[in-house]
């Protein structure tokens, strides 16, 4: 039986959205789906190695996230890759605009991808955007 595909586009840089995107990627990937994540816009900076700054929160739930012991979004994205074979692609356009090279990004992030290829792979997938 062919694996089901899940494509996740993450452009937001806020904590709640990054958390939801990461949870979707992680749980989706470990449940037998082929998960691809596309990181662009404000999401991308959080995957630059050494970027420790906390994403801004949108609302009261963001505050709760900070207080409770839920796994952080970076841990979850990493788990999606390590435990579920998810692929996390940085948007090549966003990398150009930010002036970052692949080596500057976290090791669990895959090679840069453009929209053409990503849209192609998303054609027969469930698509989520954050």
């Amino acid at each position, binding site marked *: 039986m062919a694996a089901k595909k899940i494509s996740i586009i993450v452009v937001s840089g806020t904590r709640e959205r990054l958390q939801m995107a990461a*949870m979707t990627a*992680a*749980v989706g990937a*470990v*449940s*037998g789906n082929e998960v691809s994540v596309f990181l662009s816009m404000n999401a991308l900076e959080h995957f630059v190695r050494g970027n420790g700054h906390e994403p801004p929160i949108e609302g009261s739930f963001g505050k709760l996230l900070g207080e*409770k*012991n*839920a*796994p952080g979004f970076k841990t*979850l994205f990493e*788990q999606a890759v390590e*435990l*579920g074979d998810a692929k996390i692609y940085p948007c090549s356009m966003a990398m150009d605009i930010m002036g970052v090279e692949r080596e500057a990004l976290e090791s669990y992030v895959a090679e840069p991808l453009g929209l053409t290829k990503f849209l192609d792979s998303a054609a027969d997938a469930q698509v989520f955007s954050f």
Partner: protein
Amino acid sequence: MSEPRVIDARNTFCPGPLMELIAGMKLAQVGDTLELLSTDKGSANDVPEWIHKVGHELLGNREEGGVWHITVKKVK
């Protein structure tokens, strides 16, 4: 029969317990039994779902004083 390996994910929130169990399953051998401890209510439903979906054997799921003990056997 070997002792179940205990994975203590108490006081972490969803999807923490599920991810910890999966990390443990990856390291385990086929035939090993793992026991997940969780205080997260959401995980009490989610974890058995996952076990079922992926095809391992759910040996037990009981709650004791707010802690769920979910026992699973790695079958593949």
